[in-house]
């Protein structure tokens, strides 16, 4: 049992590296799509936390991971704001999406434990909250609601592809 936190920490570090060294660089493409979108894989660190982890820890982890991403993106507070909210919403979503038999508390929300459909639903709602709040905090006024929605939509689709791709490719068990 003791190996699970270590596994989560190593995975978190690898995903953070992938986010800031690879996915951030993809955003340097000048095509139309990238001007309005970004790829956020790092929320998966919070989404993949085991079911049994307390909400407090999830929220704290969300805040810290957000700040680390902020440091690399030079967007102080914006990612932290979005990911803290996502971590909080994770708890509500898990309660809402709870299957009849309940969760196996030692597991994580993965395809292995919950199936593809469940993971897609869980991920799309979490990412929607995350991207919407991210672009809201980035622009910091609802004057640009059209732009927020456009950026949210494009980023949501791109991130969703990468995130589900991650699930299918690595098929994490915990």
């Amino acid at each position, binding site marked *: 049992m003791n190996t699970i936190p270590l596994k989560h920490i190593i995975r978190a570090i690898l995903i953070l590296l992938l986010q800031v060294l690879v996915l951030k660089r993809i*955003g340097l493409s000048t095509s139309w799509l990238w001007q309005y979108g970004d790829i956020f894989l790092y929320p998966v660190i919070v989404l993949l936390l085991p079911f049994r982890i307390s909400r407090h820890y999830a929220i704290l982890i969300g*805040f810290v991971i957000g700040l680390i991403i902020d440091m*690399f*993106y030079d967007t102080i*507070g914006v990612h932290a*704001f979005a990911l803290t909210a996502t971590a*909080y919403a994770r708890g509500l979503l898990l309660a809402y999406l709870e299957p009849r038999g309940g969760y196996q508390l030692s597991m994580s929300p993965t395809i292995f434990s919950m199936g593809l459909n469940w993971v897609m639903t869980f991920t799309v709602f979490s990412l929607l909250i995350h991207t919407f709040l991210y672009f809201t905090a*980035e622009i910091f006024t609802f004057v640009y609601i059209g732009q927020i929605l456009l950026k949210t939509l494009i980023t949501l689709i791109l991130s969703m592809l990468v995130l589900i791709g991650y699930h299918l490719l690595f098929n994490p068990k915990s």
Partner: protein
Amino acid sequence: MNNLLQFVIRYSAFLLFLLLEVVALLLVVRYNENQKSIFVHSSSKLSGNLYKLADDAIQYNNLQQTADSLAGQNAQLKQKIFNLERSLQRLLPADKPLDSCLLEPYKIIEAQVISNSINQRNNHFTIDRGWKDGIRTGMGVISPHGIAGIIDQVGEQYSTAISVLNTAARISAAIKRNEYFGSLIWKEIDPGHMLLEDIPRQADIRVGDTIVTSGFSFIFPKGIFIGTVDRFWTVGGSNYYTLEVRLHEDIARLDRVYVVEFTDTELTSK
């Protein structure tokens, strides 16, 4: 009792969530106010070293290309220097040696961009030079084909700069042909264009006009080529033109840049 306890636990998670959100929002607002007391940014050692490591690996592939491009730039600069010296010598009285007349108000520090972004609302890039190398907040950063940004946060070995593609950036720029000047800003149009605002209506503007730095601020030397006019218009009954400027530098491909330090206090006061 058990229910009450569960309620409190639930409530405390919400409180923690609210507290952290307030902290995050404070950071966002403080940053927007451009306060200097921010502790997490990519000029820190951790992120700087990581970016540097990744950049070195990528650089290795482009060495030949980079060397060719730098040699080309060198040739152009040498040509410019020889021509300028020759012109100066002709203007100066014969008994005065050229060296005694040269002003040296500018110092140039070369740097390498190790991280960059163009698809955010407020873009930044990180360079591999810090206060150890003489970098200070507010210095201008120019690139081989134009201007790149203004130094913001300075760490020991790394610094971050506000990219020209940043809603906070305002650069004094002029039309080269007739020296009308205005503020160059980025309104998230796209990474290849900026807007030059506040050009008076009597100015004669043509599509294709060259836009250069005005030299009215001491961030950038005068006359650095920024780009060309793509189109221009007036809003309503305004007395000012807005010009859409196509940037000559591809900000997405920033690589070698030069930080400009303006040292001549005598000239500043004139």
